[in-house]
């Protein structure tokens, strides 16, 4: 579903991503671990088509992201660390607005179902999002991606700042989406959450994918040791 082949990107001579290759299949969740400036966000932005790589190929479902970013964006749902919604609209209205932009016009019932599926409490649906917690806004963000029938989910530090319950709910939601066939990339600092949610884990260091493995192959403690080891070296 997602394929990166020898992708490199540098900004004013500073290497952000170097010779990055990766393939993520349907129903897979890949966790990208790395320190700040490791190239996680740059990779996500290249997948979104907002940054052009200097070299290499990026394909989503066989479509070239560089040449046809408009087409690939239709397949992508993006959930940043802080999902910013329109504070003067309710959760339902925000969802309706973003769906309409994507060309989907849903009934109120359908929109309610999307929000419920993504874990937003019913009583919050019609409330202004200015009073929403970070976790609630993230649920709306995921509902936006889900309602547009995204097949690829790109999450940039989604669990940062979430309370344990909200974080746990997010994990369950991502697993549920993957079980429906979505391919997910989750960039994070949170080793334990990544270990818990993802099938595969990649460690990025200074723009290079230094290690890639199945999450089942390592325990949480081993993963932490491995990560620290790579960061120190």
């Amino acid at each position, binding site marked *: 579903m997602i394929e990166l082949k020898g992708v490199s990107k540098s900004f004013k001579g500073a290497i952000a991503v170097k010779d990055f290759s990766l393939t993520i299949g349907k129903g897979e969740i890949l966790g990208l671990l790395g320190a700040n400036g490791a190239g996680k966000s740059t990779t996500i*932005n290249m997948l*979104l088509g*907002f*940054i052009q790589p200097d070299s290499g190929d990026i394909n989503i479902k066989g479509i070239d992201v560089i040449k046809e970013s*408009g087409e690939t*964006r*239709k397949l*992508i749902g*993006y959930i*940043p660390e*802080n999902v*910013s*919604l*329109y504070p*003067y*609209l309710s959760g339902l*209205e925000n969802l309706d*607005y*973003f769906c*309409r*932009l*994507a*060309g989907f016009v849903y009934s109120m019932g359908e929109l309610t179902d999307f929000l419920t599926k993504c874990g937003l409490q019913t009583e919050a649906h019609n409330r202004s999002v200015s009073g929403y917690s970070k976790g609630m806004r993230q649920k709306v963000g995921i509902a*936006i991606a889900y309602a*547009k029938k995204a097949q690829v989910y790109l999450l940039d530090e989604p669990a940062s700042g979430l309370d344990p319950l909200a974080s746990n709910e997010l994990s369950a939601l991502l697993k549920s989406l993957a079980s429906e066939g979505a391919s997910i990339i989750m960039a994070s600092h949170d080793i334990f959450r990544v270990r818990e949610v993802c099938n595969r884990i990649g460690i990025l260091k200074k723009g290079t994918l230094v290690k890639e493995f199945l999450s089942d192959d390592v325990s949480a403690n081993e993963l932490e040791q491995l990560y620290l080891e790579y960061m120190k070296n």
Partner: protein
Amino acid sequence: MWTIIKNEIHFLCRNRAMLMISFGFIVVLLISVFLGIKQAEEQEKIYQEAKTHLRSQWVSIKEMNPHSAAHYGTYVFKPTNLLSSLDEGVNSVTGNVLRVEGHVQNEIVHSEASQMISVSKFGKLKSSLLLKFIVPLLLIFLAFYSVSSEKQSGRLKLLILQGAKPFYIVLSKTIAVWFYGFILLSIVVLSYTLLNLSNSTSETFLRLSLLFLSYAIYYFILIGLTIYFSTRWLRTTIALTSMLGIWMIWSVFLPNILMSSVEKWHPLPSRAEFKTAMIEDRSKGIDGHNPSDARGEELKEKVLKEYGVDSISKLPINFDGIRMQADEDYGNIVWDKHFGNLRKVQKKQKEAFQLGGIVNPFISLQNTSMGFAGNDNLHHQEFLVQVENYRRDLIKALNNEHAFGGSKTGNWGWTANNDFYKSIPDFAYKSVALTSVLSNYVLDIALLLGWLIFILLLLIRGAKKMQVI
């Protein structure tokens, strides 16, 4: 695109601060319209009272020598324009009373500005003051916030990811803020129309529509430029500061700088130079009050020959009247020459100033706003011309009565009766035709439209170069 516009309107309707600001603005705009109309009505009342009083004085002249009546003269008041309640243009500085008498073309006096206390000289609270200076500022802040908030919050990324085309985003935001300006503008125009429904004519509506259109285009230009800046600059404070700088240059500095430059490029003679030249040229003509004047002698010979007599005492008419009219005719030629030159320079100044609209659309707006409101220099000059024509007709009628009314040369005690004075019509001002106004401002309209196209192109470029991350 409509989805984004609708969402922007939602923001305007649901944001409490915005609602309060809008409410405040609407109240101030309505007050300005109401006060403007009240001031115009008050002026119209004073104008009508003064006009009636002077006319009654004139028609109540029982017996008077026509030439004494020419010296007695009358006054003409500049009529108020219905749309002056919206934009009073040059009226507050040009004066509104003109003395009409024989031998001399007087200057218009008693400008409102000269009679105001210093603090009021900044101008009265007219709708145009708010629509030209204050509403644009509000629109700049709104337009600026509209894009910068999307960028800063990261929603812009989400909007594009959802399939919104960058050009549609910037255009929708421009249209949404413009729509807000359109509503403020509509409130002014509609409240004005409703309060003046009984006095309005089809021409008033046409002028009002053109005035509305000029402001609507200008607002789009200003908003589009603000949106362009906010798409291009990563640092939002720079974008806002730049736009406020442009607003200040456009509406405060550039018009003044340009006007001063235009006056230097096409200088008008000083008042003293102008008067000296007029007196000098006038002295070459006939002195209407001096029987021994050499040029008067030539005229006398001509008239004697015409009537087949050899002395003035044998003339069946009063030669004094003929001589005075000849003096007037010569004076009129001198006036036409000097004022014609003055007008030519003023026309050049006006054309050069209009070209300023190439770099400053505010100049084009200012011109069209005054022009369509009927309070620009074109209307003022037309008033002066009509008064001068009236003066000429009046003095000619008086001189003719003096010459051919039944008196003999030298009989300064002869009087015309009340019927004669009643027969002289009062001054009636005919407003400039809208077609003349349009042709006078075709350049300004074209420049505003040119700016509109330029802004659309800028928005396309801004959308292409928009910094999403």
